[in-house]
């Protein structure tokens, strides 16, 4: 019986340090690429959401579909930042500061994931006014991370 809590503890420790286990070569490139595509998909969902919330009658199914999309990508996002998948791979928007300030970055990533889950739940209920406020919070979590940890990819 004592094996279970010990293995759980080991798994938890491994999970916490997963980001610090370095990758290189094709694996690093693959993660960098997945990160880029994932972020672009989140951006695409945001563009749809922004238009919906600015219209006089936001379409609930559209909002819900985009909210689901963001939530599922947010859940995956913690696997997009393995050490070694940053600028050393090539062109990316991920600044080296991410891995230099890892606990702070992880905190911001968790905040994003939490906010995305909350937004999805509120959107599912159908109240578009509440959803709009939740969306604004979510956008705030994007900005909080990007301000510190994202750089321009071109110029």
């Amino acid at each position: 019986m004592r094996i279970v809590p010990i293995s759980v503890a080991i798994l938890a420790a491994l999970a916490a340090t997963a980001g610090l286990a370095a990758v290189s070569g094709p694996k690093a490139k693959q993660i960098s690429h997945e990160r880029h595509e994932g972020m672009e998909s989140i951006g695409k969902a945001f563009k749809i959401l922004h238009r919906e919330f600015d219209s006089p009658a936001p379409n609930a199914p559209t909002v819900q579909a985009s909210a689901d999309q963001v939530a599922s990508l947010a859940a995956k996002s913690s696997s997009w930042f393995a050490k070694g998948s940053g600028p050393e791979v090539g062109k990316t928007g991920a600044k080296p500061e991410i891995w230099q300030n890892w606990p702070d970055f992880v905190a911001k990533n968790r905040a994003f994931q939490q906010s995305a889950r909350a937004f999805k739940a509120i959107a599912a209920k159908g109240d578009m006014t509440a959803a709009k406020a939740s969306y604004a919070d979510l956008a705030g979590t994007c900005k909080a991370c990007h301000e510190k940890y994202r750089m321009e990819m071109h110029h």
Partner: protein
Amino acid sequence: MAGLIAFSWWSAEYHHTDWHIWSGCAVLTLLIFRLLWGFVGGSTARFASFVRGPRAIAGYLRGNWEGIGHNPLGALSVLALLGALAVQVGLGLIAEDEDGIVTGPLYRLVKVDTSDWARELHEYWFYVILALIALHLAAILYYHLRGRRLMSGMISGRGAVNPDVEPMRPAKWWVAFICIAIAIAITRWVIAGAPPFSA
């Protein structure tokens, strides 16, 4: 206008996107004013007085131009600069940032892909404006070295003129006031999303 262009570049470069949008709207107001002024303003400001065809440009280059205000070649410069700025403002009005969080006031008139494309072109088009500005400054410098002071005449309204040439006829002050009022009104309508088009 030059100050606004510089501020627009700076605010975009340092990610003050909200200031950038205000600055762009200010450029829009000035552009509308200039367009109106080109029809009802002082004689040298009116497009009809300086926009000439290719023959006049050739004639000017041969030395056969007697006039005040923009010479036929300078006219091309005015049109190019105003046109390029109009393109830049137009693109900005329908653009959105890559996150879909900050948007131009008319972004809902177009599809998502169009707004993205507009943003990218808006970023590159700045280099077209920069090239035109460089050309413009080079031309002014060239004339300055040749002994013609262009800037003071444009600002004060008094330039050294051949006495045979008809002097500038300034426009009434209230005409300028009306043009500014119209320009501001149109800009405010644009900022509101150009109702009813963005409804």
